[in-house]
C-alpha cells in the first residue's frame, strides 16, 4: 500500500524537524510513501461556515489528487490533518458543498470524499502497529518521563475526526511506551494551547499554555511531545519554560536510531 504524504507549508519552513524525522522513520519502518504532487496550503483553519466553499477548494484539490494516487492521504501536522479530514467529510456528506466544489474545480472525475485521510500517528497505530515499532527500536528512551500533548485539532469534533477518545485519549501514550519511555498522564493534555490568538491576545495564549505546561510539570513530565507546529510555538514561547517540547517524530527517530 502506498501513502500520498502531505507535508504542508509550515513543515517545509519552521517545522522542518517534524517533516525530516517523519520521513526518515517511515523509510526505516518500511512504509511506502511519496510526497503528493502539486500540493497547496490546506488553508490552516477549517472554514466552519456552511457557505464557505472557495476556502475549501485547495484542500479538495489535494484530496482529489490523493484519490488518483491510490486514496491514502498521509498527514503529519495536526492542523492540516484537521482541515483535510473535515473538508473530506463535507465532500462526502454535504450535498451543497460537494456540488459547488465540483462545479468550480471541474475535475476529470467528480470528487465525493473517497480518500482516506490518515494521520501519521494513526498510521503508526493502525497500519504499522505499536508492537512492530517496539521491535524496531534500537535505542529505547529508557527512564524518560514524557507527557503527550494532544491539544484540540486531532481530537475534536470527534464525530468527524474519529482519532481517539476525545476525553481520554491514549494513542500518544501508547506511542511513548512503544519507544521505551514512560508516559505521564496529566489533566491538561487535551486543553487548548491558545491557538491563533497568540499575537492578537498574547495574555490569553500565555495563560492557556502556562496551564498546560504547569499541569504537565506537576504530574512529573520532563518533556512533552506534540504533532503541531502551533502548539509547539505556544507551549515553548508562552508556557512556563520548564518543560521542553519536542515533535514526536524527533523522539521516534532517536529511538529508531535514524536521528543524526
Amino acid at each position: 500500500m502506498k501513502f500520498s504524504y502531505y507535508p504542508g507549508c509550515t513543515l517545509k519552513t519552521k517545522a522542518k524537524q517534524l517533516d525530516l524525522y517523519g520521513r526518515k522513520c517511515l523509510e526505516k519502518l518500511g512504509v511506502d510513501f511519496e510526497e503528493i504532487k502539486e500540493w497547496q496550503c490546506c488553508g490552516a483553519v477549517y472554514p466552519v461556515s456552511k457557505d464557505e466553499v472557495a476556502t475549501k477548494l485547495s484542500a479538495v484539490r489535494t484530496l482529489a489528487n490523493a484519490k488518483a494516487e491510490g486514496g491514502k492521504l498521509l498527514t503529519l501536522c495536526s492542523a492540516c490533518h484537521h482541515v483535510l479530514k473535515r473538508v473530506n467529510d463535507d465532500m462526502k456528506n454535504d450535498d451543497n458543498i460537494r456540488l459547488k466544489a465540483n462545479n468550480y474545480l471541474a475535475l476529470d472525475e467528480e470528487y465525493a470524499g473517497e480518500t482516506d485521510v490518515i494521520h501519521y500517528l494513526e498510521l503508526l497505530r493502525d497500519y504499522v502497529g505499536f508492537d512492530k515499532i517496539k521491535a524496531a527500536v534500537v535505542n529505547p528512551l529508557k527512564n524518560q518521563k514524557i507527557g503527550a500533548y494532544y491539544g484540540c485539532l486531532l481530537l475534536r469534533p470527534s464525530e468527524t475526526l474519529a482519532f481517539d477518545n476525545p476525553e481520554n485519549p491514549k494513542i500518544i501514550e501508547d506511542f511513548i511506551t512503544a519507544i521505551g519511555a514512560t508516559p505521564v498522564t496529566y489533566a491538561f493534555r487535551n486543553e487548548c494551547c491558545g491557538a491563533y490568538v497568540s499575537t492578537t491576545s498574547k495574555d490569553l495564549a500565555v495563560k492557556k499554555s502556562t496551564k498546560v505546561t504547569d499541569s504537565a510539570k506537576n504530574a512529573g513530565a520532563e518533556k512533552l511531545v506534540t504533532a503541531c507546529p502551533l502548539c509547539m510555538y505556544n507551549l515553548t514561547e508562552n508556557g512556563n519554560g520548564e518543560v521542553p517540547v519536542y515533535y514526536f517524530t524527533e523522539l521516534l527517530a532517536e529511538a529508531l536510531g535514524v536521528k543524526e
Partner: protein
Amino acid sequence: MDRKEQAKLIKERSGTDVRKCMKCGKCSGRCPAYAEMDIKPHQFVSYIEKGEVEKLLESKSLYTCLSCFACVERCPRGVAPANVIEAVRQEVVRAQGGNKVQAEKIPETINEAIPQQLLVSMFRKFNK
C-alpha cells in the same frame, strides 16, 4: 437587511440547530476562554435563537474564542456553539472595514519562531 433576517442568515451559516439547546451551560463550563468572554458560548446560542444579533456583533468573545471545539464535543444536545460564534464572526469580518488585524502592524508583533500556520490561521479567522 433587518436584524431578523440577519439572525436567520447567521443561523443558516452556522449549520447547527440552536433550538435544540436545553440551556445546561455545559459548553460554557468547558470553554477555555470563558473568563475572557463578555458573552459566553451558551449565550451566543440563546441570543441567536431569539434573533438578538446586535450585542453579538460587538462581542469581544469573537476574538477570544479559540476554535478548540470543546463546546461542540461536550454539548449533550448536538448543538455546536463554536459554529454560531464563527458565523457571527464571519458576519463582522466580511463587512466593509470589518478586518480585525492590520497587516502593516504585524511585523511589530511577531518574532522569528512564529510558524506560518499561526499567521495564516489568524488572517483566516479575523480578516477577509
